[in-house]
């Protein structure tokens, strides 16, 4: 039983430079399963909700799951949890690649980083020992150079790494952690690393990863392979599209649905979208597909290095969300610029979504004459569609120069500082910048942006159903319940840790069978989703105690104003609709009218 678990937690104290190993007991493992389950339970137990995210009391929880490091396809992700400097609330962020397997074979389920180092350090966890190494020479260094340097310094070919760039070191509130082109993108985990003077982590392991029953597990994996093959045998399955070009062609699809935010939220359609969609990128740039460990879908589009006007760009992507935030939202249609911007975001270590929204926000402020157009200096004009200005701002934000210093705080704080009514159009919820979706257009997005525990996150919305028209985009009735169910389900999936595409490729029964044959943990779908609901409520409680209550379940005023270009036959979002959605949502979740989980519901979920 529980064969696939190491059951070990490594606690790293950067202040005292100590390492402690703890055991996770069986009851804990069976209850919380792994990944986001472990992370949420530990974080909510160990962190006072009121702490400063940049203070030494904040902790970083790096978690893997029961299927990490096995051949189960689409389960290569690692989960990082911490208190977000962007929202002040609980953060869960994920990245794929090959790092999770290294953590597992190093013998750990969870690595907890505590305290703060007295100088810039990297952490190495290898069969040669655990070390905290001073690395002042890496200060300010870009991510790829850092990862290469750490690998060379540790002297192991099998080392996998994660690192921050200048943005994390400078505590840009959406500074992220990068692991070998994969990003723990949202919410500012990189800034937390920076606040602890933690530049990078390198992990290697020689340990075996086992499963409960080899024969049964192999059958379960074969069933997963069959499901994926079946799905990808359909030439126009979403999964097939991902396997060919990642998510970038989402630009074309969402544009066709008149749901692509363009020139901030002035328009829902971009006439120049065909310059930055999947076809444009596949035609212009030499690309090959790379995969996370064990994955059959290989959605990663690794571009060959390309010279651009702003320097050489070598990057994986850009993905759809980036083509929105730095593309259509900024009214940019220059694919070279997007490539270089994505590369810079990787090198500086910044969430491309939050980054782009901040750049677009600045452009909107300039458009409204709230900021002077020449504020960037260098003879550049801050205006929509200016690729040079976009690149300049990315540098300024990472370096916290001039306007960049204000925008590095995120649009919520930036708009508070700038004032002059800018808060009404700052695209954020709870401090987290919008993901690439328009709440004005899709009610599932409306609901999940307003209620997601980590802020305006799209990862828990019925996107496919609304885009396909199976759910009417602007219909309110029944929408909140659907969103709440997906939120619960996705939380449950993040305990395993399933890639966000896993559900599209395989039915839930396959996941549960993989869990059962690897660990012996058996449950039906309803119970599984309920575990996710419990985690959701734990997150909510933490946030409430951190001062993020039901009054933060809201959208900026701009979402209630009809854009200049909006589909005629579509109903725009009204305050009444929004109130209905929130009311329905609280009711479905068994929360009171203020959005507080009731004692009854908590008891039902086994939370005290």
């Amino acid at each position: 039983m529980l064969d696939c678990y190491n059951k070990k937690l490594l606690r790293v104290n950067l202040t005292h430079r100590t390492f402690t190993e703890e055991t996770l007991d069986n009851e804990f493992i069976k209850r919380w399963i792994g990944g986001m389950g472990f992370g949420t339970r530990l974080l909510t137990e160990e962190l006072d909700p009121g702490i400063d995210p940049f203070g030494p009391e904040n902790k970083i929880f790096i978690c893997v799951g029961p299927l990490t490091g096995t051949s189960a396809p689409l389960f290569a992700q690692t989960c990082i949890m911490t208190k977000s400097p962007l929202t002040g609330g609980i953060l869960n962020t994920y990245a794929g690649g090959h790092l999770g397997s290294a953590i597992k074979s190093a013998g750990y389920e969870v690595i907890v980083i505590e305290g703060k180092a007295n100088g810039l350090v990297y952490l190495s966890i290898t069969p040669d020992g655990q070390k905290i190494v001073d690395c002042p020479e890496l200060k300010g260094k870009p991510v790829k150079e850092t990862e290469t340097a750490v690998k060379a310094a540790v002297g192991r070919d099998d080392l996998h790494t994660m690192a921050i760039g200048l943005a994390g070191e400078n505590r840009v509130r959406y500074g992220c952690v990068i692991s070998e082109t994969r990003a723990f993108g949202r919410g500012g985990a990189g800034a937390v690393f920076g606040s602890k003077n933690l530049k990078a982590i390198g992990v290697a392991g020689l340990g075996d990863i086992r499963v409960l029953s080899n024969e049964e597990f192999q059958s379960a994996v074969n069933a997963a392979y069959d499901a994926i093959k079946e799905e990808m045998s359909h030439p126009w399955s979403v999964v097939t599209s991902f396997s060919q070009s990642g998510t970038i062609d989402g630009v074309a699809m969402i544009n066709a649905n008149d749901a692509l935010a363009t020139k901030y939220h002035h328009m829902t359609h971009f006439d120049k979208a065909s310059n930055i969609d999947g076809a444009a990128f596949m035609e212009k740039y030499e690309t090959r597909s790379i995969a996370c460990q064990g994955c059959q879908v290989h959605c990663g589009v690794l571009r060959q290095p390309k010279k651009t006007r702003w320097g050489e760009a070598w990057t994986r992507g850009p993905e759809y969300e980036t083509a929105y935030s730095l593309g259509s939202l900024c009214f940019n249609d220059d694919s070279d610029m997007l490539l270089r911007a994505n590369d810079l975001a990787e090198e500086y270590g910044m969430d491309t979504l939050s980054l782009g929204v901040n750049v677009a926000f600045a452009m909107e402020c300039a458009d409204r004459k709230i900021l002077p157009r020449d504020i960037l200096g260098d003879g550049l004009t801050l205006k929509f569609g200016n690729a040079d200005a976009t690149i300049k701002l990315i540098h300024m934000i990472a370096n916290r120069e001039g306007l960049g210093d204000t925008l590095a705080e995120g649009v919520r704080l930036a708009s508070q500082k700038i004032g002059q009514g800018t808060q009404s159009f700052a695209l954020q919820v709870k401090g987290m910048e919008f993901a690439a979706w328009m709440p004005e257009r899709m009610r599932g997005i409306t609901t999940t942006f307003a209620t997601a525990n980590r802020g305006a996150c799209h990862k828990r919305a019925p996107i496919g159903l609304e885009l396909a028209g199976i759910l009417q985009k602007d219909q309110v009735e029944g929408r909140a319940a659907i969103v709440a169910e997906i939120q619960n389900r996705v939380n449950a999936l993040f305990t395993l840790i399933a890639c966000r595409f896993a559900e599209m490729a395989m039915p839930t029964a396959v996941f549960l069978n993989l869990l059962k044959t690897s660990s012996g943990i058996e449950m039906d779908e309803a119970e599984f989703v309920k575990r996710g609901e419990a985690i959701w409520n734990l997150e909510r409680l933490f946030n409430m105690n951190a001062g993020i209550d039901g009054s933060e379940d809201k959208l900026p005023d701009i979402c209630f104003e009809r854009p200049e270009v909006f589909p005629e036959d579509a109903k725009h979002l009204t305050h009444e609709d929004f109130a209905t959605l929130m009311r329905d949502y609280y009711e479905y979740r068994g929360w009171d009218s203020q959005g507080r989980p009731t004692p009854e519901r908590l008891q039902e979920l086994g939370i005290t």
Partner: protein
Amino acid sequence: MKQKLVIDLEKCTECRTCELKCSFVHFGVFNLNKSGIKIITDWPRLPKAKLCVQCEDPACLPVCPTEALLVTEQGNVKVDHELCIGCGACVDACTYDGIWMDPSTDVVVKCDTCEGRFECVQDCSVQALSIGS
């Protein structure tokens, strides 16, 4: 002519499914160190692969002091992990980087074609692996 595992590096996505399958089939665990095929990332260039080319006249075979290298029915060299003492003579003898020391066990590991079953081939989602001779 012996059969051997062939990899098309232009198709390889570096997912390591082959490595996972290999270690599982041979050792019953998932451990990339225990795989007889090794994919080496070399971004932005194509990956490299370490893989036994199943020589007609294997240089590794005669230098093993403990007879830990044996020949299967299909004619491929296979490692008996119980007999291997990790001396590394075979690693030195091989000019193809086809056999190497597994740091997790300190004995050697190589592709032995799974007695002609080539278990990794069907699991490669991009058909980068094939059976050649």
